[in-house]
């Protein structure tokens, strides 16, 4: 009997989770169906393929969210507690930098954007058009972005420790972005603005958020809501600054 009641519980639990993942996905399905059937007035291309793909997305989302609360959040928080308890500023900052740098340098979206940027810059004759010139430009861009994300997380963690108000730093960052925009070469501006958005991957966000909130809840006098968030904001701001600087260094003013 106990076995059956466990199975029933599991089924009820999973179908609840599946339902909530379905609600997450529903808007996309509605928008696509509406435009396909009502506006474009065309039948679905490869209907079964879409159905199958959506099922995979649904299952994937359900497993991801389940694993988030079981694995990623607890890891981020326990690292924050353990590092705060150890009391070594060096290791805490080292960890923060390494987390930002290592998750960004291998980020597939960043690799794709950097290659695209190299291709475009070679076409507008800003850099040499040989393969080696392009790949060294792309690698330089990736390294400066990864470095900037590492630096962003490091500074963000330092902010949580010291209790500096976030908005001064962010507004200061915005002012720097605006000033650099004035002098930066036109070719890099659009790219640099977009780079801010692509650096924060699906696995980095929960980890970094848990780290910030965890730190803000162990350190006395910090409020998790006021001080715990903000790391992601830094990680989207600094790549803009660093990649524009990289553009200035490479292309000249």
């Amino acid at each position: 009997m106990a076995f059956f009641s466990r199975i029933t519980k599991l089924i009820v639990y999973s179908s609840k989770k599946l339902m909530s993942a379905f609600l997450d996905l529903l808007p996309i399905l509605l928008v696509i169906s509406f435009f396909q059937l009502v506006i474009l007035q065309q039948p679905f291309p490869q209907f079964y393929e879409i159905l199958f793909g959506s099922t995979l997305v649904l299952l994937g989302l359900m497993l991801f969210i389940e694993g988030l609360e079981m694995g990623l959040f607890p890891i981020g928080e326990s690292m924050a507690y353990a590092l705060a308890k150890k009391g070594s500023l060096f290791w805490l900052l080292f960890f923060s930098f390494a987390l930002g740098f290592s998750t960004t340098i291998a980020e597939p979206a960043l690799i794709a954007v950097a290659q695209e940027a190299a291709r475009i810059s070679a076409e507008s004759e800003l850099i040499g058009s040989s393969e080696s010139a392009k790949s060294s430009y792309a690698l330089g861009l990736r390294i400066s972005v990864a470095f900037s994300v590492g630096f962003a997380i490091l500074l963000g963690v330092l902010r949580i420790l010291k209790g500096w108000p976030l908005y001064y730093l962010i507004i200061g960052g915005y002012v720097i972005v605006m000033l650099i925009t004035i002098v930066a070469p036109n070719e890099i501006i659009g790219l640099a603005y977009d780079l801010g958005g692509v650096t924060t991957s699906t696995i980095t966000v929960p980890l970094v958020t848990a780290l910030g909130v965890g730190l803000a809840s162990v350190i006395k006098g910090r409020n998790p809501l006021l001080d715990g968030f903000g790391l992601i904001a830094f990680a989207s701001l600094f790549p803009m600054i660093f990649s524009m600087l990289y553009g200035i260094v490479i292309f000249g003013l």
Partner: protein
Amino acid sequence: MENILQGFFYSFGATMKDVAPIIILIVGFQIFVLKKPIPNLKKVILGSILVIVGLTLFLLGLERALFPVGNLMAEQLSNPEFIKKHYHNPESWLAYYWIYLFAAMIGFATTIAEPSLIAVAIKANEVSGGTIKKWGLRIVVAVGVALALALGTFRIVTGTPLYLYILVGYIIVIIQTIFAPKKIIALAYDSGGVTTSTVTVPIVAALGLGLSGVVPGRNPAIDGFGLIAFASLFPIITVLAYAQIMELLNKKKK
């Protein structure tokens, strides 16, 4: 069947590449610096496996189903023939109204399904003791992305310079920051960065490049960029605005 398996292993490999540096870093730190085992190790490992497998299936499904359809629709909607059929003067920016609407709706929809936003919403709900609702935050952020993409596609069609929009956006954020409730500021800034990851970026990039390839006088290399930047800026504005409106309403009640 073989194709599916191949796809699964390919996207599993990509996810592993993404996760490997994090695993190395955390394990290295536990062994060499902290010298203590992770609490609840079994559960954490199981959770991490779920995350990796889940993300693999998620990406695989997106690549097989949603991205091809999204790209195809962006192409069809910006097709000159489709535009001529719906508007008498294809030269005018108004002729692209279905594009603006599609951009807004697909931006809203993909943001709702964005896993990293779900993660931040769960955390914000937990930390605020339930005052910040998970769906509330996600909807407000999604509205921000919808506005961003509608305006972003309008910018591509008209060919106005990107940096002007961004500068104005920053000034609005700075003014809002001065007046908004202090508690929401950090979360609002963060919601800018989380909107644009797995689901939104590929569809948005395809839309931007496709559109700038079709509109006469636009260069994909210069005009195709910028949609992602808009999508990271506008959610900050809508989240701050939402908090300000709620505060005003609460004051009126009292």
